[in-house]
């Protein structure tokens, strides 16, 4: 039987996550421009972080298995990989819901969405490989090697690839303090990509202290296009008018202008810039801690079940 301390810890986790849910819905304020939809960040970000943690744990136990050849290490590696896969699916689903509200579409092959999809495929490959092999030693050995190689891709697919691509609508600059979207520099007549929107700078015009740009914005697939007129206040050296992208809650802003060279820097202004509210940050932290504890619990149960399954198979083999 589980020790009393473990049971109390699990009960506390249940209460903790209930508190996180309550805080998510009724304590933290709404995000400016996003309304109640912005609250999903309290689920989305921690599940994504926990998936990275889980894949890291899986790779660690895979390395330990290759070193020590203990079946328990392989059970732990597999359990962590399965939990990581589950949390990645949760992060993807919550992200897709957010995407539907903010971008108007569940899935638009944004670099962030594509990279997480590739990550899911890689770990699905691990499970398929293990399922295809009958020899337990071979299954464990190859699974451990695959898991190590799979983890090498995790930092690239989760942290590097989406930041290398300028054409992402994933709101790094909106929610993560310290990160920023650089935007794109365009001169008159030039075309660029801002988010998944094609933008073309038609002309620049100075009217008093303001510089106004005429920008054609095209939807993906060139379904429709609109002309927007973001402006820049020269006296305050700050963006002035920031019209919304058609059908989105993101705005286009003129971040900087060089009139002599005829070049402007256009960028996305996401609603609810920075989760600066203390309650939101504390809830996000509490959610991350809660999901981490939940992962540890789930992973322990699954590893135990895999161990029991292995013991039963051993005994069945001995009896036959």
């Amino acid at each position, binding site marked *: *039987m589980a020790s009393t301390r473990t049971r109390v810890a699990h009960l506390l986790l249940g209460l903790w996550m*209930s508190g996180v849910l309550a805080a998510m819905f009724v304590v933290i304020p709404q995000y400016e421009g996003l309304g109640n939809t912005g609250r999903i960040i309290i689920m989305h970000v921690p599940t994504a972080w926990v998936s990275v943690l889980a894949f890291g744990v899986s790779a660690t136990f895979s390395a330990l298995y290759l070193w020590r050849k203990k079946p328990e290490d392989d059970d732990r590696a597999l359990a962590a990989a399965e939990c990581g896969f589950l949390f990645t699916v949760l992060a993807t689903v919550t992200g897709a819901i957010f995407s539907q509200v903010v971008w108007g579409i569940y899935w638009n092959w944004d670099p962030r969405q594509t990279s997480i999809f590739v990550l899911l495929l890689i770990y699905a490959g691990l499970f398929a490989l293990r399922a295809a092999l009958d020899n337990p030693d071979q299954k464990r050995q190859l699974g451990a090697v695959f898991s190590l190689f799979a983890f090498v891709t995790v930092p690239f697919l989760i942290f590097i690839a989406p930041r290398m691509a300028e054409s992402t609508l994933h709101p790094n600059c909106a929610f993560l303090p310290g990160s920023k979207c650089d935007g794109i520099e365009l001169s008159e007549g030039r075309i660029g990509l801002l988010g998944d929107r094609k933008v073309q700078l038609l002309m620049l015009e100075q009217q008093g202290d303001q510089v106004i740009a005429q920008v054609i914005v095209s939807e993906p697939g060139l379904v429709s296009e609109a002309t927007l007129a973001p402006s820049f206040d020269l006296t305050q050296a700050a963006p002035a008018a920031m019209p919304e992208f058609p059908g989105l809650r993101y705005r286009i802003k003129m971040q900087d202008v060089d009139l002599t060279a005829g070049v402007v820097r256009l960028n996305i202004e996401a609603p609810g810039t920075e989760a600066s509210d203390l309650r939101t940050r504390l809830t996000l932290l509490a959610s991350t801690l809660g999901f981490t504890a939940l992962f540890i619990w789930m992973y322990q*149960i699954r590893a135990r079940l895999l*161990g029991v399954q292995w*013991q*039963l198979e051993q005994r069945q083999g001995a009896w036959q």
Partner: protein
Amino acid sequence: MNVALEAGVAVYIALIVALAVWAGVFAYLWRLDAQSRELQRRLEQQPAPEISPPVSVSVRQQRPDLGEPRGAE
């Protein structure tokens, strides 16, 4: 308009649904945890079956009229 869809009410309904889902997940994990521990405890208490050595078979063919057995191993 449906009262449940009003912004002030809908957020509480969403909270109740989320809490109900979490309660279900928690109860499932709690039960699975207890059952897996019990299963492990039982397995540890039961002695593992001894693996018997491979069975060897000897065949002796004997004809009464020949006296000495043939093919004895």
